[in-house]
């Protein structure tokens, strides 16, 4: 009797490991245009500040906020050139509080298109 046959008969069970590897690029920083930090989230504003300062110095602004769900917002400075934070932040908060609670950290991608129509004298 071959060793394979003995194994199939149950004396020694077969053990195999299957491996799946998914490769993707790590985003630096691992956030997009905005991040809203919930009041009871696993990381707080100071931790976010350390991360942002280390990974993308001077590219983000951290704003502490008085809100029932979120305690801080991290906004990409380049976005704030397109839209001031007093316009952008209320919209972000309104939308994010619909989908998140105070335990969450919400990542947001924001696309802003500026439309300009100008006329010149001919």
């Amino acid at each position, binding site marked *: 009797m071959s060793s394979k046959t003995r194994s199939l008969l149950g004396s020694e069970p077969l053990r195999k490991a299957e491996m799946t590897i998914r490769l993707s690029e790590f985003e630096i920083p691992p956030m997009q245009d905005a991040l809203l930090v919930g009041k*009871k*989230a*696993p*990381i*707080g*504003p*100071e*931790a976010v500040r*350390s991360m942002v300062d280390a990974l993308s110095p001077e590219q983000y602004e951290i704003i502490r906020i008085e809100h029932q769900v979120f305690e801080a917002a991290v906004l990409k400075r380049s976005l704030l050139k397109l839209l001031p934070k007093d316009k952008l932040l209320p919209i972000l908060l309104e939308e994010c509080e619909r989908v998140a609670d105070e*335990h969450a950290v919400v990542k947001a991608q924001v696309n802003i298109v500026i439309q300009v129509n100008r006329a010149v004298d001919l």
Partner: protein
Amino acid sequence: MQTIGEIMTKELVTVKPEDSVARVAELMERTRIGGLPVVEGGRLVGIISSRDIRRCHPNRLIADAMTKEVVTVPPTCSLWEAKELLERHGIERLVVVDGDYPVGVVTKSLLYAELGKHIDALTGLQQAAFLQRKALELLQDGKEIAIIFLDLDDFGAVDKELGHVVGDEILCRVAKVLGGVMEEGFDYLFRYAGDEFAVVTVKPLEEARKLALRMVNAISEEEWPLGIKVAASAGVAGGRRASPREGDLEPYTVSDLINMASLASTRAKKERRQVVVAGEIELREANCIQQCPETV
């Protein structure tokens, strides 16, 4: 006067802003300390309490969980000033600092235990040390004060003839009777020593004299056990805060004021008068308490 520096816990357990909440929770559990100063580069940057810890995710940094506004005192702060700060801010501990550097911690329980030593166990009144403190505090608030010193007449005879147990009962009742004459927010009653009681009042000297008379009368009109007759004599002295003047080499102090009232009560006893008013003196500002600096 006893200071916070004398009673504070000097063996400090501190944490860093970059520590995790989970690690600090474990440290608090192990050391059984409910609040820890947060220190960065030796400087105090916050305080973390077990309450803060409970409200936060264990993964968070202490920097994201701590209270950044820390109520601090210098080691020279008096126990009473520290007590007032604790009560005003509704907190459990004060961090003692030398500049920005923490040098100790005082908890509410430690402070109250120490202050309890200044409470007279028999009558429940505060003792002489607190009289000084209260008088200085009122002077610093810009108030004129008067000290009433009341001495029971021949009380030693009660102890000798009826025993100290009866004597103690009478002393307790004297404290209650006198307490009934006090006006809250104006008059503060203390047991000075033995059969001597003292009051610091913010009433003008003449009003203080009337109060002393009411105190003496309240004692003599009280029905005492075993038909004992209890009487008292009182002395009154008034004082107000004066700015320091050059050449004034012998400034009066609150101790002088208490002494004047005490001597006046002795005179009252000798002259068989109910109350003797010693007069009024100016107290130098330099003898008033130093304001306890506070970093909030």
